[in-house]
């Protein structure tokens, strides 16, 4: 079954691209462009400022030195710190020239850059993802070799160090309690930060795990379905809800998943379980799967 879906390179690449675009637009924080109050100082004072001040203090329209007086500017230039940095050219400025620079800076502070709400989607960390994968794709019994394989895949992709976020708090959940000498993923917050490697690990985990029939069957069982269940609105909602319990499905997504299942069977002649595999894979690689 693996070759039917996952060896389709163009599909994999396209999914990657879409996911990355989504993360850039949906998950990252946003900040508006800087808006600067326009004001035109005299040309000579602007030139003086550009020659002697701009490299350190920014463009005159938004200089960090707006409001500085002649006395302050002269005092700063003759102080030890400034003189040491750029002493010769600044010390050569006449009082008249310093006054012109002060005149150019004599205006109110421009308003700071407008801001927009800083928001980041709350993603599950390593432990959340491990428990979610196990809950959906494994059964308690773990009797078959495929179940063991699923467990091993979860361990490989999620338990071991990677990019999933959530720190190993004082060796609290490292896989080898006394064998680890560094705190794993120490800089991660409780809520991990989206990243390309993290997305790659999760996509690969979905791909590998769902290449096993048992994982597909277990996910369907978790939603009280079987591979022969019809892909209707009710059953799609059941599956969606157990995989994304804190998100409400809408009719557009529901009909899209139904179409996916239907076309897999009718146009591409896939089996029942392969058609459900497509649907579950779509849900598994979606960023909604990571959301708390």
């Amino acid at each position, binding site marked *: 079954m693996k070759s039917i879906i996952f060896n389709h390179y163009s599909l994999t690449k396209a999914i990657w691209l879409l996911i990355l675009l989504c993360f850039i637009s949906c998950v990252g924080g946003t900040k508006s462009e800087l808006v600067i109050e326009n004001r035109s100082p005299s040309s000579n004072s602007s030139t003086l400022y550009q020659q002697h001040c701009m490299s350190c203090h920014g463009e005159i329209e938004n200089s960090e030195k707006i409001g500085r007086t002649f006395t302050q500017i002269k005092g700063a230039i003759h102080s030890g710190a400034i003189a040491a940095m750029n002493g010769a050219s600044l010390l050569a400025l006449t009082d008249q020239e310093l006054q012109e620079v002060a005149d150019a800076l004599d205006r109110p*502070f421009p308003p*700071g850059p407008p801001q927009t*709400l800083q928001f980041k989607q709350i993603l*599950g960390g390593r432990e959340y993802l491990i428990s979610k994968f196990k809950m959906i794709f494994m059964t308690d019994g773990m009797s078959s070799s495929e179940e063991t394989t699923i467990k091993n895949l979860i361990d490989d992709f999620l338990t071991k160090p990677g990019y999933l976020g959530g720190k190993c708090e004082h060796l609290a959940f490292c896989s080898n309690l006394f064998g680890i000498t560094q705190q794993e993923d120490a800089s991660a917050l409780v809520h991990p930060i989206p990243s390309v490697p993290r997305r790659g690990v999760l996509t690969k985990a979905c791909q590998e795990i769902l290449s096993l029939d048992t994982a597909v069957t277990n996910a369907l069982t978790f939603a009280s379905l079987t591979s022969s269940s019809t892909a209707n609105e009710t059953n799609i909602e059941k599956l969606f809800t157990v995989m994304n*319990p804190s998100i409400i499905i809408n009719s557009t*997504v529901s009909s899209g998943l139904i*179409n996916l299942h239907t076309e897999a069977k009718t146009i591409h002649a896939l089996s029942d379980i392969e058609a459900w595999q497509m649907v579950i894979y*779509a849900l598994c690689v979606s960023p*909604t799967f990571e959301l*708390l």
Partner: protein
Amino acid sequence: MKRLNQFLLILSMLFSLQVTASDLNDIAIFYRCYSQITQKFPDPQLSQIAAVKAGKDPITACLEIFDSASFANKTHTLKAANVNDDNAKAVLKTMHTLHFSWFAMQFYPEIASQYLTNVNNILDSSSPASFLTKSLFDNASPMSDIVSGTVSYRPIRVFENVPNAPYNGTAIADYIFTNVKFASVGNLLGFEILPVDDTLDYSFDENQNPPESIITGTLTYNKHFGGGLMGHQTYLIQNIKSNTFNPTPDGGVKTMRNWSRSVFNDLLCRALPAVRESDGASFVDLQSSITFRNSQSCVKCHTSMDQMAGVVRGAVYSAKVGKFFNPGHSAFIEERTPTQPSADIFPTAPDPAFRNRPPEGRLYYRTHNGTLVDQAVSNLQDLGTKIAAQDDMYNCMAKRYYQFFTGIDGDIGDIADPHHGTLSSEELVVRGIILNLGQQLKTHQNSRVLIETILRRPEYKKSNFNVGGF
């Protein structure tokens, strides 16, 4: 190709679900809350899920699980009945990890190659966060304790009395401390109060080569300097970051400003400068040999952090057991006894006696509403008391919990500062929510109540936390 298009279309539609502002149903609200507080995917067999399906309020059901982690009276550990409760342990771990993540410094720095990093084996690096976690799960512990408590907490984890140093594997027999108790490891169960006069006996060969020269003695390794977490050994060691066992702060270039900068970050959510441009003007001295005193731009940061740092000027390391090459060596913070009279806490010339003067400092910053706080403090404990009397620490905690549960990072800075960015109307609304939560927290002093208030806010019930709709 058609299959590919269909697949991408589905993914696109799935993406859109996370940005729409639909109302969640009760089950979804419970799942969201449960996942956040435990960092686990809920088992559908969870009794609270059945209860919510039967009509129970989802936040009440979620808080039942949250409260399973509350501490037993007097001791600061999980109730005995919950020690083996996976949900209780998960909640405790989640919140403690969250609190730990708020600290700018989380590891012991190196000094003389390695010795402070060895402290990791003895004092849990997350110890300062214990003040916040204890305050959250112990109803009798007011929030102000995090900056005014005078006891030291030590995390209790599942594996106690470990035979080897957890971080470098040194066997206990090879350690220079003959009565050392290594930090426990594994899942957190709670905290114990570590006596501040607890001592370690040491014995080691001073010479790396024969003849032997055995040094023995006793040191206090857990002395607390007041001011809640700010004066905890771990917080001091992690943040002072001296590169010598005998720091010699002079109030000028050399001072413990790493520590005070962390205080502004960790407890007040403020990056420097924490004052306005004009607030530094009076501290500029063009004649000073301390170069940062010549520039208003430099002084505006130094004036807050350097003046606060005066309260830890007496910190010094237990160097005699730390300066020799041996994996079992460690160094802890001790305190000089002041021998010189008070003097200017922010001198314009290096003060060679600065480190031997009383630990005086100044709390100097602009509050969220633009008020300039300019208060002398006589020591670390006094600093904590004065921080607790302001609104900003409570606003900071409200901001962080609100961000944890909603993903929304509100601005609680001095927005009247001309250099501060202009907030959008939506940001102003969120700021108002957070400041209100902070004011409530200052009044009730209970972070558990704060969390419940956040969870019961209308935006928590929105699929996208109402982003774009405030």
